[in-house]
């Protein structure tokens, strides 16, 4: 038997892999062998740590030292200095914004210190491809407890009492949903995990599946027991190959140990799991479309009722929850509903994982208790806005959500407060925007997404979003007309009330919320033909003022040779050729170039 005195955790989440963590791992393995340390230092590949901005991430135990931006060339220092001699490699430590002091232990970094990691507790700390790592920290004991000491109604009561609400978007109480599926009579029932995460900028579910897959499987099995289902499906989009690979390994390992399969823990409860790879249509995240897709039919929604709890997959009673919802379940069983209900606000319990993206210093995953303010998430955890820019808005809830302005930064982040201000929790994507983002342009972006992803079954969504997108495009190109805003509002209201599925009904939300908080930007585009943020190229013009000294730097910088002028004379920009990239303005040492 060998004793490993040190464990080196290398992040093998999708983010870190794309920034090169596999190369780091290979180099580390090679150099440890060279130094003769391979028998005493163990390399552990983990899932996402959440601090994706800083990747590739490496943590060295027993000290718990946190290294960031580790490249192949840094490996020699880590091996030679840290693993061989025990000296921390200062230059690879994370430096806090402001103080610039290196922080050795990740627990002391603001980004982690200010989070409450319950769902993500294991992500980045266990090997997701090794079931024993999960069992070592108490994995599958919740399933054991539920199967051997509780009856299905008690499990449902516990989930009801915990106040857990669906993390996929709508926020429907999970215990209630489980209860419906249990009450529907039927020999055959199904549990489905919706892992068709498709919002732009959202990667919570992906990281969870890649970093701690067993937690989700355990939650699904507990749900199966509660509602009386013996079969479960994980609907994962094919664009998540790593998540699918790790889920397959996890299911196989759990089956080998008898934790998934027949007569689990001798209780007589059988539960089998299958993976269905989705082809990547956004609409398949809608539950009825998702079930149609599993059945092998075209992924389009149908009208409800009947709800899945009554007639779901192949007409059988079915319970569908999202990845994060299931991930909450094992903890509720082990630690109890009262513990869970003590976290969060009156009607929104527990924690929520957010994916921070856009104009924010710390891109990554943050798990926070419900009821925290948006300001705390963006500034305390996310590290604020980069490059000294000013905050403008945050988009929450993906294409179905809304943009919130600075005045609302101090509101509580919970299901009901967000609905009140015209946004929604959604699955947890947070896209931060600064003063250079045009709100008309951003709502055009989200609408073009929903428009492209509209399945086309119902007219309001298929035609309505297309017309809205045409108007928005017109406005951003400087062709906006009087009455456009009002027309947008009418269309939005019609789509909201008449579209068939949730995705269609919420598609106009980005437009409505930006109209609510940033109407003046729409008006500026239409009436003054100007884009206040300077983002819409159709409405921007770069000009050179008298201040020009004729140094010629801008002519060299211009990628399309649109600037001309005599040496030491005033230069001019050919507006026909100019592509509005702004490169000249950034280069000019005399601030002679203006944008308007």
């Amino acid at each position, binding site marked *: *038997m*060998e*004793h*490993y*005195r*040190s*464990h080196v*955790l290398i992040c093998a989440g999708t983010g870190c892999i794309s920034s090169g963590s596999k190369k780091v791992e290979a180099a580390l393995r090679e150099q440890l062998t060279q130094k003769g340390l391979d*028998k*005493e230092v*163990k390399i552990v590949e983990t899932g996402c740590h959440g601090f994706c901005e800083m990747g590739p991430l490496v943590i060295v*135990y*027993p*000290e*718990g030292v946190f290294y960031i931006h580790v490249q192949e060339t840094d490996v020699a220092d880590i091996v030679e200095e840290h693993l*061989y*001699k*025990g*000296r921390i490699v200062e230059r690879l430590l994370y430096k806090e914004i402001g103080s610039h002091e290196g922080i050795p232990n990740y627990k002391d970094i603001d980004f982690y210190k200010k989070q409450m990691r319950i769902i993500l507790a294991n992500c980045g*700390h*266990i090997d997701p491809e090794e079931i*024993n*790592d999960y*069992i*070592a*920290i*108490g994995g*599958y*004991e919740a399933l*054991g*407890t539920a199967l*051997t000491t509780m009856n299905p109604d008690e499990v449902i009561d516990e989930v009801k009492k915990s106040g857990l609400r669906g993390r996929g978007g709508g926020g429907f109480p999970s215990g209630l949903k489980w209860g419906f599926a249990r009450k529907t009579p039927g020999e055959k029932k199904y549990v489905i995990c919706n892992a068709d995460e498709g919002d732009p900028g959202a990667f919570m579910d992906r990281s969870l599946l890649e970093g701690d897959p067993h937690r989700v499987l355990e939650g699904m099995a507990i749900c199966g027991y509660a509602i009386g289902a013996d079969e479960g499906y994980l609907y994962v989009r094919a664009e998540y190959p790593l998540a699918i690979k790790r889920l397959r390994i996890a299911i196989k390992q759990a089956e080998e*140990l*008898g*934790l998934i399969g027949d007569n689990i*823990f*001798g209780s007589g409860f059988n539960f089998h799991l299958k993976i269905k790879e989705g082809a990547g249509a956004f609409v398949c995240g809608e539950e009825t479309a998702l079930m149609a897709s599993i059945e092998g039919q075209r992924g389009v929604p149908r009208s409800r009722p009947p709800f899945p709890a009554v007639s779901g997959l192949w007409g059988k009673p079915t319970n569908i929850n999202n990845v994060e919802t299931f991930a909450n379940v094992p903890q509720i069983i082990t630690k109890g509903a009262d513990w869970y209900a003590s976290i969060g606000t009156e009607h929104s319990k527990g924690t929520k994982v957010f994916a921070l993206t856009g104009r924010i210093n710390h891109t990554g995953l943050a798990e926070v208790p419900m009821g925290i303010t948006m300001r705390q998430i963006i500034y305390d955890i996310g590290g604020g806005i980069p490059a000294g820019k000013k905050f403008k808005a945050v988009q929450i809830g993906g294409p179905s959500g809304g943009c919130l302005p600075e005045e609302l930064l101090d509101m509580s982040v919970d299901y009901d407060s967000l609905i009140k201000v015209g946004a929604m929790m959604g699955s947890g994507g947070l896209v931060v925007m600064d003063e250079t983002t045009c709100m008309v342009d951003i709502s055009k972006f989200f609408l073009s997404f929903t428009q492209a992803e509209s399945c086309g079954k119902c007219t309001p969504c298929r035609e309505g979003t297309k017309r809205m997108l045409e108007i928005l495009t017109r406005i951003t190109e400087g062709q906006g007309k009087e009455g456009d805003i009002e027309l947008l509002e009418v269309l939005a209201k019609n789509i909201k009330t008449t579209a068939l599925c949730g995705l269609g009904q919420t598609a106009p939300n980005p437009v409505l919320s930006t109209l609510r908080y940033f109407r003046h930007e729409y008006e500026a585009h239409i009436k003054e033909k100007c884009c206040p943020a300077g983002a819409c190229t159709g409405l921007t013009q770069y000009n050179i003022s008298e201040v020009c000294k004729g140094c010629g730097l801008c002519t060299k910088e211009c990628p399309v040779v649109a600037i001309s002028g005599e040496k030491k004379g005033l230069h001019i920009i050919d507006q026909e050729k100019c592509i509005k990239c702004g490169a000249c303005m950034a280069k000019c040492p005399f601030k002679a170039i203006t944008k308007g």
Partner: protein
Amino acid sequence: MKTIEDLKRLREQVQTQTRVRQESSKQIIVGMGTCGIAAGAREVMSAILDEIAKRRLEDVMVRQIGCIGVCEKEVLIDVVLPGQPRITYGRVTATDIPKIIVEHVIQGHIVKELVVGKITE
């Protein structure tokens, strides 16, 4: 696996594999400065790890430390047990390790003839 007891047994068994990632109360610290390495700290380190593996002492954390200044007394190792002063042993060789681990780390008796210092925190 048939019962929840089976799961708990497996859990205890596999917990040792991830022990290094949790805080441990017992520590052995090896001086790995240039002086220590020259005096044979690597051999001492290997001997410590062998002994720990042999005796399955999963709750002992092994760390390294740089030079603390008494280079002539290298190889220096420190043993830290909960609630006790930190004991520094000097001129340690690989052959001393079984004795230090058995008598001090396991039984709690300091190996007096090798001690060069004591730090009370």
